[in-house]
């Protein structure tokens, strides 16, 4: 591994750790929230915002920016945290999670600089991202559109309408990342409605699929560096992740899909995450 690459991975791992700390900080400010799905997404978000995506935080409406849509909008604590760390919004935002009239509620609000769409009603983001990618194509722009989907979100049929159409249009400027933490609000997804064979589903809709360890920064960076994975197909990255990653009591349990967070829990979480 070259020194530069080692430094890159270290920097991104640091941003991801900071992101998780900021998630818990926001959750404490809000009295709770979606710790599990925010923590599982943190490494991928860090790689997107601090390495892969072309962004101008001081000019959030820059027409040529890469787009990111958080379709699994309940992970908004992680989106707010990454926007703070990237410099789109002031750090104090994290202390206003769920607060009265805050632009930082449970789900993304387009009024917050850096947020591309109001999401969180599940099954909407892929169609919207597809529209953004088509918008780039029609206007001869070269920005890339990323959309992060929850795995349980894939139960929504509207995703498959969009997956079929994006495959049909060979939208190679569209990348869907499935945060595959295997757990939904009520339990393990296998026991709700089975998704497997998940990769084959996407492939059969005309997507180029890669499955990665969503907490291995080298794996994530290699994949995003290679996107689009096929010149004639949209890309689906199935990121195998752990719900609640980084905090032992929140890991791999539906109980931390969403839960209350007080000062004590916050302190315990931060002590496990370590300094950023």
């Amino acid at each position, binding site marked *: 591994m070259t020194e530069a690459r080692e430094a890159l991975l270290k920097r991104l791992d640091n941003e991801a750790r900071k992101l998780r700390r900021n998630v818990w900080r926001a959750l404490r400010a809000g009295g709770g929230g979606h710790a599990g799905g925010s923590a599982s997404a943190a490494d991928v978000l860090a790689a997107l915002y601090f390495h892969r995506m072309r962004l101008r935080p001081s000019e959030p409406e820059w*027409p040529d920016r890469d*787009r990111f849509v958080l379709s699994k909008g309940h992970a908004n604590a992680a989106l707010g945290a990454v926007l703070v760390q990237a410099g789109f919004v002031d750090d104090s935002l994290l202390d206003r999670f769920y607060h009265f009239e805050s632009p930082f509620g449970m789900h993304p609000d*387009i009024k917050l600089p850096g947020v*591309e*769409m*109001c*999401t969180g*009603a599940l*099954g*909407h983001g*892929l*169609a*919207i*991202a*597809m*529209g*953004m*990618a*088509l*918008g*780039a194509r*029609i*206007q001869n*722009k070269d920005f890339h559109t990323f959309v992060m989907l929850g795995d349980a979100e894939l139960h929504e049929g*509207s995703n498959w*309408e*969009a997956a*079929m*159409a994006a495959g049909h*249009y060979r939208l190679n400027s569209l990348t869907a990342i499935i945060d595959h933490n295997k757990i939904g609000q009520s339990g393990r997804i296998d026991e709700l409605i089975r998704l497997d064979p998940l990769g084959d589903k996407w492939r059969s809709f005309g997507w180029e699929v890669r499955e990665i360890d969503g907490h291995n920064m080298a794996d994530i960076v290699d994949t995003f560096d290679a996107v689009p994975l096929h010149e004639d197909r949209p890309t689906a990255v199935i990121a195998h992740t752990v719900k609640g990653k980084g905090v032992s009591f929140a890991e791999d349990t539906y109980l931390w899909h969403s839960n209350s967070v007080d000062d004590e829990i916050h302190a315990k979480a931060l002590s496990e995450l370590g300094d950023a």
Partner: protein
Amino acid sequence: MNTETSTQTNWRAKSASQTRLAFGQALLEIGERETRSVVLSADTQDLLGIRPWIAKYPERFIEIGIAEQNAIGVASGLATTGLQPYVCAYAPFITARSMEQIRNDVAYANQRVVIGAAASGISLGVAGGTHHALEDLALMRSLPNMTVIVPADVNEAYYATLATLDIDGPVYMRLGGRTPEPPVTEDEASFTFGRAARLRPGDDVTVIACGALVEPAIRASDTLRAEDIDVRVLNMHTIKPLDRDAILHAAAETSGIVTAEEHRCTGGLGGAVAELLAVTHPTPMRMVAMPDEFAVVGPTGPLREKYGMSAEAIVTACRELLA
């Protein structure tokens, strides 16, 4: 955006036979004037007459297939990139099925998406209740940021569609089906967004109608005029934002108000007028609309008669208010 020629056009009402096709024709003019315009189809290329658009602007056309939720989501995404999407769809499906996408992705996010919704009301009469759109106005009217327009004839549909160029937000344009839509407006531009058109003067009673019930309202007015009853007829083509002034004047100047629409009696034009008057100027009203039930199968004309959405029903309602 280039809109300096907004009332200058060679278009004539007679060149389109139905409002749904006038929408498609107006799109061609929009395509010339606004290079950011994009048309989406939900397998509705003939329904809204957009094949000429597809031939002329293939790079600005997107076929979505029979996937209305996706059509709205994609349109919202396109709009965020600065494009101006026009979604061509069936009224019953694009509203009820895609309601969440319209509410969140379009209205809540306030994206400039125009929905051309053909085959509204009971225009698909023989198709049965699954294919009737008798609650679409109630659904669309309940959304903040949404503009709701119901053209009454092909001329109005054409100019109302052009008027969307100047509306900076989501629009629901309610269009008809294959039933003939008799002309009720002038051949040249007569559509003023948000302003009801007074088609008949009168100070005894007012009929406020939209869409397919405007022409019966005119006939009702003419019938009653023969009895020396002067019925004011307002064509309320813009349901949202509502022309409050025209309604409040009618309430103050005439003995009562009859609303007339091809929509269920709950939440449509009648509801909109009643909501305004109940709190500002309580006024005797009658509502000519589809009763609170699903329509049987049948041709549109007989269905309108059966359910009392007709000139005769409007005449009766006017007489009741004057009794």
